[in-house]
């Protein structure tokens, strides 16, 4: 998957937060900047990872209380308010226990113990200001709907002032770009060797979500409807391009539910999504080049 037209570049690959990262720059990154990126990711993980015993969200689930607002709390939780409202509660940051119940827990037990809806009135249990964050019930915060996008933005913000030229921060297919254009293949959700289209992106972020890879059989995967605690079933894969990876990630999640396209419209986010039976839909004016059949339906 080389890009013969692109200039010389250096790629730094590592694993963090359960995914494979690739940071592509025109010149190799030195140890100092790498250490700052590593620390940025570690800080985020220590607060928001429900897979860590020692994280803040794990601690809050055991011992609900008021704490000083961690970095990124207000930005992410404000976005969750919009997501939750747009999707009639399907997206919810207190969905952690629901994921655990299906087996997607810190131990990766992958054993289905049944559907567990998340608390619908989550804003009654989780409140925040710029300074404080308070959880009043033993709920498990899961920012998976947009957290990886937020972290990608943070990493790009660490790199941007320190690195000349084009930058790609790619966290397992969720990416933020400075410069470009970068040609990005949209992976077929049922066959990772194929793409359903190409999206050329410049100075923006592209995030994707799909139900096939983080799946553990019998319809179980990581995109849940918080209202039922069950995995979603209508859409197999979503892609969104936005100014920030957090918003692209949030829309990629919202697109699995009714109301997602309306929020995308409100935020000015372009998108593509594929249903589980192979139909493809896209946003008005979407710039992606999709490999579709001849029978496009005008709507």
């Amino acid at each position, binding site marked *: 998957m080389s890009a013969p037209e692109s200039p010389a570049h250096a790629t730094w690959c590592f694993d963090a937060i359960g995914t494979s990262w690739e940071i592509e720059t025109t010149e190799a990154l030195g140890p100092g900047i790498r250490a700052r990126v590593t620390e940025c990711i570690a800080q985020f993980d220590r607060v928001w990872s429900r897979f860590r015993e020692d994280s803040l969200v794990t601690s809050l689930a055991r011992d609900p209380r008021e704490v000083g607002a961690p970095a990124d709390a207000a930005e992410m939780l404000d976005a969750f308010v919009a997501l939750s409202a747009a999707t009639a509660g399907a997206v919810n940051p207190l969905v952690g226990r629901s994921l655990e119940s299906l087996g997607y827990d810190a131990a990766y037990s992958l054993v289905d113990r049944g559907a567990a809806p998340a608390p619908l009135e989550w804003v009654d249990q989780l409140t925040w200001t710029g300074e404080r964050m308070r959880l009043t019930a033993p709920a498990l915060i899961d920012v998976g709907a947009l957290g990886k996008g937020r972290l990608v933005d943070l990493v790009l913000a660490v790199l941007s002032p320190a690195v000349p030229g084009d930058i790609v921060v790619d966290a397992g297919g969720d990416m933020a770009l400075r410069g470009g254009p970068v040609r990005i293949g949209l992976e077929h959700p049922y066959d990772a060797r194929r793409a359903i289209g190409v999206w050329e992106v410049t100075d923006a972020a592209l995030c994707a979500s799909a139900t096939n890879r983080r799946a553990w059989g019998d319809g179980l995967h990581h995109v849940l409807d918080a209202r039922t605690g069950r995995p979603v079933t*209508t859409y197999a894969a979503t892609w969104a391009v936005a100014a920030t990876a957090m918003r692209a990630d949030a829309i990629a999640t919202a697109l699995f539910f009714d109301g997602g396209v309306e929020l995308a419209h409100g935020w000015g986010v372009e998108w593509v999504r594929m249903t589980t039976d192979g139909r493809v839909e896209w*946003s008005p004016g979407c710039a992606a080049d999709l490999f579709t059949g001849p029978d496009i339906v005008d709507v």
Partner: protein
Amino acid sequence: MIRTTTVPRPARVAAAMVGVAGVIALAGCSTGGEAGDSAGAPTTDSGASTAPSTSDAASYADGTYTGEGSYATPESVETITVTVTLVDDVITEVEVVGQPQKAESKQYQGQFVGGISEVVVGKDIDEISVSRVAGSSLTSGGFNQAIEQIKSEAAV
């Protein structure tokens, strides 16, 4: 060449994913015992795994696998049939037949949806000159280990 056969209307694909995800994640076995059959989760009669990014992964028998399932929505019980054809560990065809879902209204789509294609054609990623690929998150670590363990218990 993958051919994703579409049904005339978008299928409510609880079970499509069930079938397909089950097929992808769990190789060649009944899945009832692995993940439980609670909450009306469908069962997959048989399946196989693709391991699309690692060609040296476990092999699964070529053939056509069909899974049927049903699941409860708040309004009804939906049923679906998923047929997957495997050749050399690659899903070459996916067919989903199921009940049509409750679609968003035409007016709603007209305002926020730019277009719809009933047919998508997968192209080989090596042939479209891209420098990045975006799909489901590439995973590492514990999740993959757990999946590999399930697959090793299921492989033919």
